[in-house]
């Protein structure tokens, strides 16, 4: 009785899960099939990577500045004057493992995920996706495979770039604006920041990138109902991708080892 009552409520959810599950399965199958759409892959690399540099620069710089500020305040208030220089590793660790992958993921979801949905959604409602099929081209291989691969590769590159900017911004705030001891700050940062911390952030970024692209393509492929429908699908992409990123960020932080050196 209880089951009968619950199932209709959850039916749309099951339907969506089935739909995206099928898309993921077909995408993986098509990673190993030819022809590979090299031109679209290269265009996607440029679109996701090069064209996102300005937004990632601003996000990482201000993320680094504000995190540097709060760590400075924290040390100054709770440990005392002079201890602020020990905040260097915390700033770098927080930025590389959490803040930069998360901020870049959210920004890319807004910039790239929505644009993928808008582009594929417009193709869907103007029958271009059907035309692909009619010309013997698998829409998944043509539209989804190159975009998900490009996003999987480029988002970690953007995060690495963002890490450098963010760490420098945190350093700049503490050393040049607040007059923290540069030598202690740098020594501690280099001593305690591990390569694994950066790699953790890059692993997260690769997964975020792939999720953003698959959500963007999924929503685009199911868009219907003209321009309004494409608009709704675009909004759904940003909401769904952002929620996925936030949940995955916690799960990955929990699942990935905190350190490889045992410190």
């Amino acid at each position, binding site marked *: 009785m209880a089951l009968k009552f619950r199932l209709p409520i959850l039916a749309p959810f099951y339907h969506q899960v089935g739909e995206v599950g099928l898309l993921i399965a077909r995408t993986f199958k098509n990673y190993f099939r030819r022809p590979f759409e090299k031109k679209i892959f290269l265009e996607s690399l440029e679109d996701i990577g090069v064209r996102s540099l300005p937004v990632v620069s601003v996000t990482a710089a201000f993320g680094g500045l504000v995190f540097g500020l709060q760590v400075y305040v924290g040390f100054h208030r709770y440990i005392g004057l002079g201890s602020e220089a020990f905040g260097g590793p915390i700033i770098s660790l927080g930025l590389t493992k959490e803040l930069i992958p998360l901020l870049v993921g959210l920004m890319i979801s807004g910039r790239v995920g929505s644009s993928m949905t808008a582009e594929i959604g417009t193709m869907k409602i*103007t*029958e271009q996706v*059907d*035309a692909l*099929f009619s010309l*013997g081209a698998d829409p998944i291989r043509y539209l989804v495979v190159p975009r998900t691969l490009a996003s999987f590769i480029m988002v970690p590159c953007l995060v690495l770039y963002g890490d450098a900017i963010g760490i420098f911004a945190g350093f700049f705030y503490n050393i040049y604006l607040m007059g923290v001891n540069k030598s202690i700050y740098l020594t501690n940062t280099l001593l305690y920041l591990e390569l694994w911390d950066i790699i953790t952030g890059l692993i997260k970024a690769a997964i975020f990138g792939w999720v953003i692209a698959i959500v963007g393509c999924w929503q685009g492929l199911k868009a219907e109902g003209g321009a309004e429908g494409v608009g709704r699908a675009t909004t759904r992409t940003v909401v769904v991708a952002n929620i996925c990123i936030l949940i995955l960020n916690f799960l990955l932080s929990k699942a990935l080892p905190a350190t490889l050196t045992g410190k």
Partner: protein
Amino acid sequence: MIRIVDLHKQFGTKKVLSGLDLEIERGETMVIIGQSGSGKSVLLKHLIGILKPDRGQIYIDGEEITRLVDEELQKLTRKFGMLFQGGALFDSLSVAENVGFGLERYSDYPRGEINRIVSESLAKVGLKGIEGLMPHELSGGMKKRVGLARAIAYKPEIILYDEPSTGIDPIRADSINDLIIELKNDMCVTSVVITHDMVSCYKVADRIAMLYNGRIIEVGTPADIQASSSPVVQQFIHGKAQGPITDW
């Protein structure tokens, strides 16, 4: 060559096709007529495998296509060319890339040969020298004709035309009718044409099928259809506002 048996398709609560049966012979031009929204485009999309039926079978050269999986279906689609209602040109590709899309991916032709076929296909639809233009630089009618050039470029055995003359001036529309006839005569192409334009319909059709309430209610030569005793067919072909179709 094409046999459709008891085809059913429903979108939500709306039944579009309900037990449609039709046979189309090799080399024949079959024109399907019917009201807007009666399911003509849905029927075409079933023929090429874009849509899967809820029930029923479609046989192409004896092969049942509704159960084919992706790879097999894609091989089969290479037998088909399809002209979509709005042209459905790929926005990010030039006219030449659009027309040569299928050839570039699935033929062994060298680049020069593909370029020659692209120019020849464009010339056939009266659009010489526009290879470098992008779709947004074309008028609606030109897009449609480029779509037709794309559909015929790789010389398919079956061509599906979704309203080929809509949005094109009468002279160009007639030249497209001539092209449909020429393709049939020269290459023995099987054509399935959806149109509301009865002048085109009578000119190109070997047989005409009337789709009404999800089924084919009458099939015959243009003369048979004109002489039909069905009031539904008579109302449609004469374009009358009053009649059984509009009595609700």
